[in-house]
């Protein structure tokens, strides 16, 4: 809610933008020439809506919005922006949680949602060529009849785009066994900020030269726009077992996770939810999640029948040894799907509890899970805030969520202060700043706690090698003082450009 209050003037002004006012802009005219009038939007409604993603960051300021359909069109938009000295921000489905797609500096927003073609499935090489706007789950569904899937499965997979997954190097529950997005990207066609089109990576197992593909994955839209992606496709495992374990404390659940990994089992997924979030989820899905358990662990193993049964038994045993009060095996595919639907809609289910949430995304060593979790609850208590934990336990990726109602006076300061302490607690335990959601604009201010000043300067140099003008998704990832962009001025709306 608060983002609306804060933004009131800016958005309201944006919504009221008079089309005639901007029609005379030669940059817009060039965009219309390059695409078509119906795919260049400059009205207030479009610009206001595309100033947001799924994060709580209080909005940016969008220039014209374009919906290209081909690589050539993206290149033409990028060249026009270069000629006119304008900024460019790529955007997928806008589900980012770190504000990556939020436009700063009145850029042209390049929404690649219409580049959603699955170009080619090549089972010989185990890859698929897809457009950046292809929805993650759509690819998996498309592959189902031939017995394959796309392994990275962020909880937002039903809506987020593969271009967005690449840019954020997204993870998901099943990335524990299969690796995050980076492990599944083979090659990419990229439109550089100059408008040149290059291919990064390649289908050879050991491509010659620098691994620029690796640099691009996780670059959060700051190195250019990917327009075509070769992703690895993964064969479906013949058998899957999904277990739901209930515990009397979050610590017991965390210890079970450590126990499973220590026993040498490599589960496909290990997810923990605490009681508050489990109840909200159960209200929505009715999957049979216990409402009275302090924490639940969703564990999945896949492979050959004998192996998975053995692993499932061992997981149940380790759970019981760590105080599990109930262990349930999903009896059917429907039941299994419902359990996962619950886990994957957890963030969305939160509005049942409070209208706003602030989500963190730190990673801590598995051995410190229980300790850091206890600290997060302590911190929240001290600030008189409600906190919930839902996390990819297998790789120590915590998602503490602070609930609040932004209409409450002064609550935001508390939320940010508590968030800062949580991050500090994770870093102190030897953790890192972002597991999978990216840095965007939200975690920027914490970058210098992880990296030295030299580290950050060199990251910025890499960025400038791709984007010397500092115009592609400016003001993201690299913090003030190290960034080539003037973040302060990006966040204000320059007088000469509309609004």
């Amino acid at each position, binding site marked *: *809610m608060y983002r*609306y209050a804060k*933004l*009131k003037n800016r*958005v*309201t002004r944006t*919504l*009221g933008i008079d089309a005639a006012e901007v029609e005379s802009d030669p940059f817009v005219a060039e965009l219309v020439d390059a695409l078509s009038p119906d795919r260049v*939007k400059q*009205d*207030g*409604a*479009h610009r*206001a*809506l*595309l100033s*947001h993603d*799924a994060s709580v960051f209080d909005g940016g300021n969008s220039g014209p919005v374009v*919906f290209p359909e081909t690589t050539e069109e993206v290149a033409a938009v990028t060249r026009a922006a270069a000629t006119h000295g304008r900024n460019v921000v790529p955007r997928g*489905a*806008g*589900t980012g949680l770190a504000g990556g797609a939020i436009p700063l500096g009145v850029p042209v927003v390049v*929404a690649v*949602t*219409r580049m*959603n073609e699955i170009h080619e499935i090549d089972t010989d090489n185990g890859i698929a060529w897809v457009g950046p*706007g292809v*929805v993650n*789950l*759509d690819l998996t*569904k498309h592959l189902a009849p031939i017995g394959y899937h796309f392994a990275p499965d962020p909880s*937002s997979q*039903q*809506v987020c785009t593969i271009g967005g997954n690449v840019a954020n190097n997204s993870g998901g529950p099943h990335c524990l066994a299969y690796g995050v997005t980076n492990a599944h990207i083979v090659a990419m066609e990229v439109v550089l900020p100059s408008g040149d089109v290059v291919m990064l990576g390649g289908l050879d197992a050991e491509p010659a030269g620098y691994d620029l593909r690796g640099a691009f994955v996780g670059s959060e839209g700051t190195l250019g726009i990917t327009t075509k992606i070769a992703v690895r496709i993964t064969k479906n495992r013949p058998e899957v077992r999904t277990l739901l374990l209930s515990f009397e404390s979050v610590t017991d659940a965390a210890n079970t996770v450590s126990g499973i990994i220590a026993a040498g089992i490599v589960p496909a997924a290990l997810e923990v939810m605490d009681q508050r979030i489990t109840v909200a*989820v159960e209200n*929505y899905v009715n999957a049979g999640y216990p409402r009275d358990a302090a924490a639940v662990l969703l564990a999945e193993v896949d492979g050959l029948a004998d192996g998975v049964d053995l692993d499932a038994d061992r997981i149940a045993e380790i759970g019981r040894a760590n105080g599990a009060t109930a262990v349930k095996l999903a009896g059917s595919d429907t039941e299994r799907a419902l359990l996962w639907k619950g886990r994957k*809609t*957890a*963030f*969305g*289910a*939160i*509005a*049942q509890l409070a*209208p*706003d*949430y602030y989500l963190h995304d730190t990673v801590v060593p598995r051995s410190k899970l229980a300790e850091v979790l206890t600290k997060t609850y302590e911190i929240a208590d001290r600030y008189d805030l409600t906190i919930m934990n839902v996390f990819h336990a297998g790789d120590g990726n915590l998602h503490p969520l602070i609930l609040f109602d932004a209409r409450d006076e002064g609550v935001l300061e508390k939320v940010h202060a508590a968030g800062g302490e949580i991050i500090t607690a994770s870093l102190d335990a030897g953790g890192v700043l972002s597991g999978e959601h990216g840095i965007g604009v939200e975690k920027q201010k914490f970058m210098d706690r992880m990296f030295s000043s030299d580290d950050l300067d060199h990251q910025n140099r890499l960025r400038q090698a791709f984007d010397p003008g500092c115009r592609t998704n400016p003001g993201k990832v690299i913090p003030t003082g190290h960034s080539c962009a003037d973040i302060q001025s990006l966040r204000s709306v320059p007088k000469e450009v509309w609004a």
Partner: protein
Amino acid sequence: MDLKLGSDDLNTCVQCGLCLPHCPTYRVTGDETMSPRGRIKLMREVQLHDAPVTDEVVDAFASCVQCRGCEPACPSGVPYGHLMEQTRETLADSGQMTPVWLRAAMKPLAQPKLLAAGTAALGVAKKVGLVPDRLGLGAADIPLRQEPLPTTGTDVYLFTGCVMDTMQRDVHRAGLDVLTAAGFGVTPTGAEAPCCGALQAHAGLTDETRGLAEKMMRSLAPERPIIVDSAGCGAAMKEYGHLLGTEEARAFSGRVFDIQEFLADHVDKLPEVAPLDLRVAVQDPCHLRHVQRVHEATRVVLQPFVRELVELDDDGLCCGAGGAYSVLQPELAGQIRDRKLGSIDRATPDVVASANPGCSLHLGAAGVDTIHPMELVARALSAAM
């Protein structure tokens, strides 16, 4: 301006975007202004921050099919359908939405005689090639002549409504036959209950809808279940409780059943017959799947009577019919339908079963062989006799 939306309802949306892929207009445009998340945000801007209601804002609202595919997809339980209906009502009242001609066009719906004359005229006009195909009525069969439905008893009502009554009397007859075969005596509502008000409600003409709801509640005897064979009408009638907010209206809504929903509990009472030799794809009307959420019943009832049932692979995405939508937004409706046609093609059915007249007309106009599930069941039953 004040759209008169409840502020808690508005605030329930956390802008997560999980609803986006379930929205037909977002699916075909990839455009946030054509998405549930975007529309909710525009409502907020207008109501909470007095943002101007520009043409683009009106477009964003007007392009919504009101299929409510976004509702079951939303883990936060945002009551999107009510938000959109209220928004349209307020904007219609202030003259910013719903052109006058549309209101006029809806008048005859509440007057069966006028409509009967209208559809008969339309039928003739179509035969002689007078109806522009833009209306999407091209391939549909518009009946030229009607025969009244018999009353077979007083166990249940069969709601015959307005559009359905004249354009799809065969469906009512099939429903009546199947209910009778299951041992229920049926009273067709006929002129007793001329119109459910669904189209009026979608257009934001809430006063008209309330009037129709009250009229219907007065004329149908209490206690008796009311069986509805049009998903859109059933959904509207199940909402009377919310619409009127009275105990009486809630009780009324409580005895409204979709015909498949009702029969799913009584399949065992239907005779066992040889199934029709058909591969049937089930197309769930949005108002059955997303609003009433009883679409599984269609499968339960249909399964014993056909050789093979197949699911479409689009998770129940809307077909673009949406009441008057296909007439008001022909371009988007066409694009949305194209997606559905792709999905139907992949399922390779002999025939598509759809429990809503609007969907059947809309898909039929694109050359898809559609039939109401009850007609299939009735056909299987009568073949055995």
